């Protein structure tokens, strides 16, 4: 099974997520759009520092800014996160098969245990 993924974009997404402040910003945006001022509130950080984090998130495609000149509210765009899921999902059938085998192996090891029990 092959799924085409833009590797650079994926690295950018991972890099953007590898920072606790940015993850907190995203978690806040998961609840709804917010202005930069609102996003800065919970952090002991100056606005320019928060803006810098938001720019990183924008470049990674995780945040989109509104066009209203004064506020330009930030909103979450979860599309890049869906790309992250694709590598992981390729492993699901592998693990499922493994655990089927683990189940068979446990039956072999334990013999009569299963027969005696009601499920």
């Amino acid at each position, binding site marked *: 099974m092959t799924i085409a993924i833009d590797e650079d974009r994926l690295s950018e997404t991972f890099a953007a997520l590898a920072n606790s402040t940015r993850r907190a910003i995203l978690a806040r945006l998961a609840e709804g759009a917010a202005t930069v001022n609102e996003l800065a509130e919970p952090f002991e950080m100056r606005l320019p520092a928060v803006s810098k984090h938001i720019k990183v998130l924008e470049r990674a495609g995780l945040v989109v800014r509104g066009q209203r000149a004064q506020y330009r509210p930030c909103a*979450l765009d979860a599309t890049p996160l869906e790309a992250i899921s694709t590598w992981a999902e390729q492993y699901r059938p592998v693990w499922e098969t493994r*655990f089927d085998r683990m189940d068979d192996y446990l039956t072999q090891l334990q013999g009569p245990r299963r027969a005696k029990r009601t499920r």
Partner: protein
Amino acid sequence: MTDNDGSRDAVVIERSFDAPVGLIWQMWTDPHHFKAWYGPNGATVPVAKMDVRVGGTRLVCMEMQTPDGAMQMWFTGEYREVVENQRLVYTESMSDENGNVLSPSDIGMPDGHPVTTEVSVELEDIDGRTKMVMTHAGIPGESPGAAGWAMALDKLAAYAGAHSER
């Protein structure tokens, strides 16, 4: 949580086994048992070295028969959490037979595959049976704290799922 919602950044599989937790723990930590079930279909596990303690390393070889002969893939990693019969967390990276980490593209793995992934196994005794939750997730290289990252992503992934019909 069911298998198919939430946690879209990771594979999360929940299974229940008719076996005591101690035995399921051994499935993951005793090389003899591990080799019996781990290899994907058509593969064997000729090598499984496991130093099961926090900071201990692991080295696993999977061998597949191909028309060109036997193909070996090696995986290395480190145990991060070891709570007997309850919780096991280890990292995994593709490597050579000496445990030197390789980049996924070197060996033809799909683009976008993180260099290091993390497997966590949670076990719970339920009247002599065992509930197991296995999570296989990617780790961004720069982040030492994968747990916070995974939690944040869970939340975001749930959001993505809820809004995917936009």
